[in-house]
């Protein structure tokens, strides 16, 4: 599976499998939400930092399990704009992804351009 290319460490693999199992145990709607969020988070989130990635999905599992226990409807968990929630959530975890690299590249390019301007 493609995740194993990213999550290289054996301990991380084990913890990732534990996360998958927790998701499997969720009620239907929450499980679907978990998979959808996971897809988004893994595409745009920390792709080169296994422990950051594991921390992220583990926190996601915590949130969904707590929400099931508290009877919080799914829409109240992710809000009107799930992308906004996912983005905000993702910001808590380090590591690079293609989008973060592009953001860094833009910031660096503008820094350089500014230095040129002052010369």
């Amino acid at each position, binding site marked *: 599976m493609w995740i194993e290319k990213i999550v290289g460490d054996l301990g991380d693999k084990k913890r990732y499998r534990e996360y998958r199992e927790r998701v499997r145990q969720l009620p239907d709607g929450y499980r679907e939400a978990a998979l959808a969020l996971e897809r988004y988070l893994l595409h745009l989130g920390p792709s080169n930092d296994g422990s950051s990635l594991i921390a992220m999905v583990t926190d996601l599992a915590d949130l969904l399990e707590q929400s099931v226990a508290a009877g919080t409807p799914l829409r109240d968990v992710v809000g009107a704009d799930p992308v*906004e929630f996912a983005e905000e959530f993702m910001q808590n975890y380090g590591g690079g992804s293609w989008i973060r690299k592009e953001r860094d590249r833009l910031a660096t390019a503008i820094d350089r351009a500014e230095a040129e301007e002052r010369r």
Partner: protein
Amino acid sequence: MGKQATEMLKGTLEGIVLALLSGRAAYGYEITAWLRDQGFTDIAEGTIYALLIRAEQRGLVDVEKVPSEKGPPRKVYTLNARGQEYLNEFWRTWSFLSERLEQLREGGR
């Protein structure tokens, strides 16, 4: 709660949550429930959760894991000294902002 209120609330939500935690310890769900009671009906549980994760990572809150009857253990948050400092700064910024806006409304500069 309208779209504009939601947008405006975003920048202040962290301060609101920390202010709430300065009064008493609470877990995520309690905080969301309190905000909803106060009329902040569009606040998502996930938004508060992400905010609390960040506050924890920045060392603004202390966290204690408390077992719950159902579901995983709850993380109970309290504001610590660093968080209190941050909150004081938030209130100074808020005073500045609200005074300036009030002046604008009255047509002054």
